[in-house]
């Protein structure tokens, strides 16, 4: 997953329903910025592409791929496939289950099932001898994940 998609998820969380499309130049500016409640400039609503049902309940859009051998059957509720190079319509993530910016140290909305690694800041260091034996000079990285329950018994 790259930044652009992650940004889309992030902005999707703020969008409070409805389909949004973002211009590609947005993603760089939005990387680490704290989100605001107002949609940033550059996000435009596309009412024509929004099925009314998706607007109301944030449901997963019913995108289906037509088998080739079936003659095209018109299904009114299926959104059209966007041209290559543009962002496809995104499912709007419900705000429930996300961690809002004020509750986490990253400063932006954390969605479930995505991992985040904060940047390390230089703090205390071990004495070099101790660091050598601990395998790191940084106490905050000294995380011995010792298995419990039998894996290392008898060693």
């Amino acid at each position, binding site marked *: 997953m790259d930044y652009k998609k992650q940004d889309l998820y992030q902005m999707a969380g703020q969008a409070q329903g409805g389909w949004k499309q973002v211009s590609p130049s947005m993603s760089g500016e939005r990387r680490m910025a704290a989100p605001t409640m107002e949609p940033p400039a550059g996000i435009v609503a596309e009412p024509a592409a929004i099925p009314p049902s998706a607007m109301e309940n944030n449901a997963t859009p019913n995108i289906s791929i037509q088998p080739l051998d079936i003659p095209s059957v018109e299904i009114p509720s299926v959104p059209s496939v966007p041209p290559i190079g543009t962002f496809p319509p995104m499912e709007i993530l419900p705000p429930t289950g996300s961690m809002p910016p004020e509750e986490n140290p990253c400063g932006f909305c954390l969605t479930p099932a995505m991992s985040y690694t904060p*940047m*390390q800041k230089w703090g205390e*260091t071990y004495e*070099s001898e101790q*660091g050598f034996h601990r395998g790191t*000079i*940084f106490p905050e990285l000294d995380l011995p994940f010792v298995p419990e329950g039998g894996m290392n018994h008898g060693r």
Partner: protein
Amino acid sequence: MADERTVLLNRIQVCDFALNDAALYLDINPDDQTALEYFKKYSAMRNEAANMFVAKYGPLTRADYSGEGSWKWVDGPWPWQKQEEK
């Protein structure tokens, strides 16, 4: 009590480890002055120990050849050999 050769080798090893770990940090924080100071301190300590070792016990690497009339590298023990293996 470890002999001086072992003490010097340990010091070089410990300093090299600290330098490596600090370098990993500096790779992503290249302007962190505290980290740079740390690196400078252990770099000096490492070089001092290495120079002392080379002067007394021969080359740490073949690049330590400094123009003698004989290729000291082949005079054991090599730096990675423990003293009792001599």
